[in-house]
């Protein structure tokens, strides 16, 4: 039993590393160049536009850009992780070996998470350097809490992308994942809005949406970070557990769907 679990772990890690290498080969990390150019432009140009308060605007632009770039990678790479293997028929070569479908899904997920982690860390370093350049070094400490939350949000989004791609086409999966991303950020506000409408059905509907879809508003700490605030340990701890639990649910459902899928 122990031998099997060791072997499963090795398989998952191998798939994850291969997924990371594939992402690098596919030039996914080229987005970092655009990001760096954006941050350099902000650091140089924002001084006049913000009347000398460029540090907080660099944090706002930087952190939102990290989220948007990361979300695009999570959505567009995430939905093609499985479908590309099927399209290229490489999935047959993989499953000819002693690899379980659940291991394959988990390995792909972790590989993309690793890609996102590298991406997010490099971008975070870019924002930090820009802050040093504009003499806003005091904000460097506060941005990393927010960057961790962004990464956790992206891991959930990746799991959502994998779930949709396990049963629908890449284009539809991308669209559905994008909608989940948008609604996931608004679910709390929509629930409050529904409470104000007075309709029982609306209240019930948005209550279901609130708990069923990932509540990504938990991971929004960008405005606070721009004001020098740092997330507390209970907040970080809760966010990590929420991300692990929610992603596990999605990956389990994905693996179950994927197990029943016929590749012929």
């Amino acid at each position: 039993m122990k031998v099997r679990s060791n072997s499963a772990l090795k398989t998952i890690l191998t798939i994850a590393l291969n997924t990371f290498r594939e992402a690098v080969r596919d030039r996914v990390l080229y987005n970092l160049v655009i990001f760096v150019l954006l941050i350099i432009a902000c650091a140089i140009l924002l001084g006049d536009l913000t009347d000398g308060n460029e540090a907080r605007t660099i944090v706002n632009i930087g952190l939102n850009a990290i989220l948007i770039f990361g979300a695009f990678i999570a959505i567009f790479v995430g939905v093609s992780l499985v479908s590309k293997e099927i399209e290229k028929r490489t999935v047959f070569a993989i499953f000819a070996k002693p690899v379980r479908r659940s291991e394959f899904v988990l390995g792909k997920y972790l590989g993309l998470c690793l890609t996102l982690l590298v991406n997010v860390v490099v971008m975070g370093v870019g924002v930090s350097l820009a802050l040093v350049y504009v003499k806003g070094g005091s904000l460097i400490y506060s941005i990393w809490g927010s960057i961790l939350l962004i990464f956790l949000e992206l891991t959930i989004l990746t799991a959502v992308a994998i779930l949709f791609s396990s049963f629908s086409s890449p284009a539809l999966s991308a669209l559905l994942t994008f909608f989940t991303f948008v609604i996931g950020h608004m679910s709390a506000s929509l629930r409050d809005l529904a409470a104000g409408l007075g309709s029982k059905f609306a209240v019930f509907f948005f209550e279901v949406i609130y708990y069923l879809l990932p509540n990504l508003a938990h991971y929004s700490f960008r405005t606070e970070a721009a004001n020098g605030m740092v997330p507390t340990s209970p907040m970080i701890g809760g966010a990590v557990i929420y991300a692990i639990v929610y992603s596990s649910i999605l990956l389990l459902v994905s693996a179950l769907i994927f197990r029943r899928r016929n590749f012929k």
Partner: protein
Amino acid sequence: MNKSSLQYVLSGIFLVLGFIAVFGLSNYLERNRVSLPEAYQDEDLTLQGKRLKGYVLGAEGLIADWYWMQSLQYLGSKIIGSKNESFDLGDLRPLNPRLLYPYLDNSTELDPKLMAAYTFGATILPAIDTSKAIDLTEKGIANNPDSWNLYHLLGYIHWRNKDYEKAAQAYDTGMKLPGAPSFMRIMAASMRTQGGSRETARVMYKQMLESDPDAQTKTNAEFRLKELDALDDLDALNASLKTFTERQGRCASGWSELLPLLQNVKLPEGRDFLIDSSDSVVDPTGIPYSIDRSTCKAQIGPESTLPPS
């Protein structure tokens, strides 16, 4: 040249000509763009900060920054576009910057801790609409109850409005907050005893110049201090002109005649008169003061950016 090379050369020529055409067309379209009528340029903001909150994917801070930058650009464009070359920083109503408050309001709704917006609003809005300035600063205090600087700004607005009792109350409350400088205690007292004095004004603007992080506020404070210096200069010049008239039985024909008298005059803060190369007494912006012959009084030169005395 073979066929393939020729294709490359022709493609290259086409690309260059294409970009030249795009450059020309772009400029042509820019020149022929139908400009909006003036009434449309200040169209009310479609979106309200409080309604956007919760629906912008957590990017409230970024949008708050955008509205705040818009407020700076908006006021700047109003000043640049003003047909009247000289304007009074103390009264910006002729520029009609009616969207300034909505921009700042949206900005602070989306990020209630955006101190730069509160500071900018508290120093500029009193020159447009005092009640809006008070609204914005009180909102800032409600959202940032530990910020003594906002109480200082509220005191400043009431002081500008000549409501010295309310100004003193603002300083009284602010001075009890942790980290409040002793300056707040001094201001609370001086508001009650000599609220309208020039000395109080000088302390107020000096404090803003030294401690406020906002560049616009510093510029404003620096200008106000120059204005106060000019008022001190004018008082001293008028006193010297009076002495000269009493001694000579006529008004001085120019500043050079008055220089021997001015050498003995002590200005507040230990300053000396500024004299240019042509022996004219100049104001803090470097423009010579003029003498009104009919009244034999010194006045701000017509080319100065300082408001007329």
